[in-house]
């Protein structure tokens, strides 16, 4: 049986009709008890399981997923990875994630197709250029790469951008983060799943957590559609469903669930080799390796669990695309979909102990948590293994809503998450 992926094993298996490949992970029945159980088989849950095994030697671990791996937001997201945030706490978090992404394909022995093609955030007025300069300064002071581009430099990065002098949103300049980029969403979930499975983690799909076991005021496991599973430590990484599970555990969260949608066009020849975001339209897009134009924008305005998306935002996103790239008016859109994202008032995540002892949170990533999967997993694993915060996750504790020490990225970095 062949487990390791390499050019050599590919060639060898090619000669043997690819009959020797081992499944990427097992599908075991749940055991009655584990050292740690993680609810949610998205990127954050799977990464948590991997780092529990890898960093802390805790291998008697299960990931419980109600549907299929990565079928939540992870498999629906537009995969932009960047760390262009404003506050030091945020840059420490997102740049940690970006650094882990830079070595992840090799670490997991799985091609996550991480392509550091840069993100171009375009400004349209002198006022926005001042905001852009402020963001660039903050990023540089926080130790991450950022450049302020002139209009000519910005147009050079994306030559098809609207050059009409009468454009509603002219190109006045841009913020450039060259280390940012995109990765393959499924591959991140599958890569972590395969690596975690290799370290002994049980990945259990088609198993919904329906309630919590609470003994002496402490969470001691979960009730599932496949029976009771006991655990010393339980992690919650269910994104848009965090409030539903919090209610079962007896507490509320500062989260509102919304739909976030995206679309792809038919595949076309290579014409765009970076990710472009317009401050004015809130629309962002890039070209996938298959040639499709992947386009997204802001949240639907109606609180929702529908995973469907309403027409007004489609119109906003597509009209934004046409403003940015008039030539894309020729494209035919192929697919539209939505995820169920967990939005927090200060647009920063919630990582830390929950009000129920023994249950730990990793949620509130809202529209931007794909980029942080390696860090979110690393930090939740640290919490579950040690019972206390890693320095990077401390500012993102739930207690900031009591102390008032918010990490207000919605206002701070002026970017649509």
């Amino acid at each position: 049986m062949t487990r390791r992926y390499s050019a050599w094993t590919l060639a060898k298996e090619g000669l043997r009709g690819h009959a020797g490949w081992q499944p990427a992970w097992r599908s075991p029945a749940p055991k009655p008890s584990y050292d740690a159980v993680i609810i949610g088989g998205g990127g954050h849950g799977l990464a948590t399981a991997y780092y529990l095994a890898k960093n802390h030697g805790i291998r008697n671990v299960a990931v419980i997923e109600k549907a299929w791996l990565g079928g939540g937001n992870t498999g629906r997201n537009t995969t932009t990875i960047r760390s262009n945030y404003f506050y030091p706490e945020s840059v420490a978090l997102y740049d940690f994630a970006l650094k882990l992404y830079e070595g992840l394909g090799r670490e997991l022995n799985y091609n996550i197709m991480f392509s550091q093609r840069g993100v171009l955030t375009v400004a349209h007025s002198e006022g926005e250029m001042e905001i852009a300069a402020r963001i660039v300064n903050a990023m540089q002071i926080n130790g991450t790469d950022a450049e302020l581009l002139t209009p000519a430099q910005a147009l050079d990065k994306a030559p098809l951008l609207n050059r009409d002098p009468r454009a509603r949103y002219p190109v006045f300049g841009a913020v450039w983060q060259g280390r940012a980029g995109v990765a393959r969403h499924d591959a991140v979930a599958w890569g972590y799943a395969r690596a975690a499975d290799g370290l002994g983690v049980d990945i259990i799909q088609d198993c919904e957590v329906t309630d919590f076991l609470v003994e002496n005021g402490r969470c001691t496991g979960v009730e599932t559609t496949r029976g009771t599973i006991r655990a010393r430590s339980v992690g919650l990484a269910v994104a848009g469903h965090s409030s539903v599970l919090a209610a079962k555990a007896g507490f509320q969260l500062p989260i509102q669930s919304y739909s976030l949608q995206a679309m792809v066009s038919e595949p076309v020849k290579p014409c765009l080799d970076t990710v472009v975001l317009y401050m004015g339209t809130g629309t962002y897009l890039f070209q996938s390796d298959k040639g499709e134009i992947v386009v997204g924008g802001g949240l639907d305005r109606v609180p929702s669990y529908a995973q469907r998306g309403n027409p007004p935002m489609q119109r906003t996103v597509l009209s934004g695309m046409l403003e940015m790239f008039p030539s894309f008016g020729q494209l035919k859109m192929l697919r539209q979909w939505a995820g169920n994202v967990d939005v927090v008032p200060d647009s920063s995540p919630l990582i830390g102990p929950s009000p129920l002892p023994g249950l730990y949170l990793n949620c509130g990533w809202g529209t931007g948590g794909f980029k942080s999967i390696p860090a979110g997993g690393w930090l939740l694993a640290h919490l579950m293994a040690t019972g206390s915060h890693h320095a990077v996750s401390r500012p993102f504790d739930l207690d900031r809503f009591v102390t008032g020490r918010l990490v207000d990225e919605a206002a701070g970095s002026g970017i649509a998450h």
Partner: protein
Amino acid sequence: MQLFPCPFCGPRDETEFQFATEAGKTRPEPAAEVSAERWTKYLYLKDNPKGPTREVWLHVTCGEFFLMERDTVSHAVAGSQALGGDPR
């Protein structure tokens, strides 16, 4: 495009409306005696239910806040009423 029923203007396009908050939140008083935890609950914590919900919405066009009952999965609207007024 979905239509939402404003109790004052009748059915109007969803783009004319803005979500305000979950219904049933009462400002704790007197302010000086309210603990930080109680403010947190009032200002930030939500039920965020999956399924039927009661919410306060703003019809931006006429400027009125009102109550709306709807379902967060199907998006079906069960009804709306003026704040403190009769159902309609």
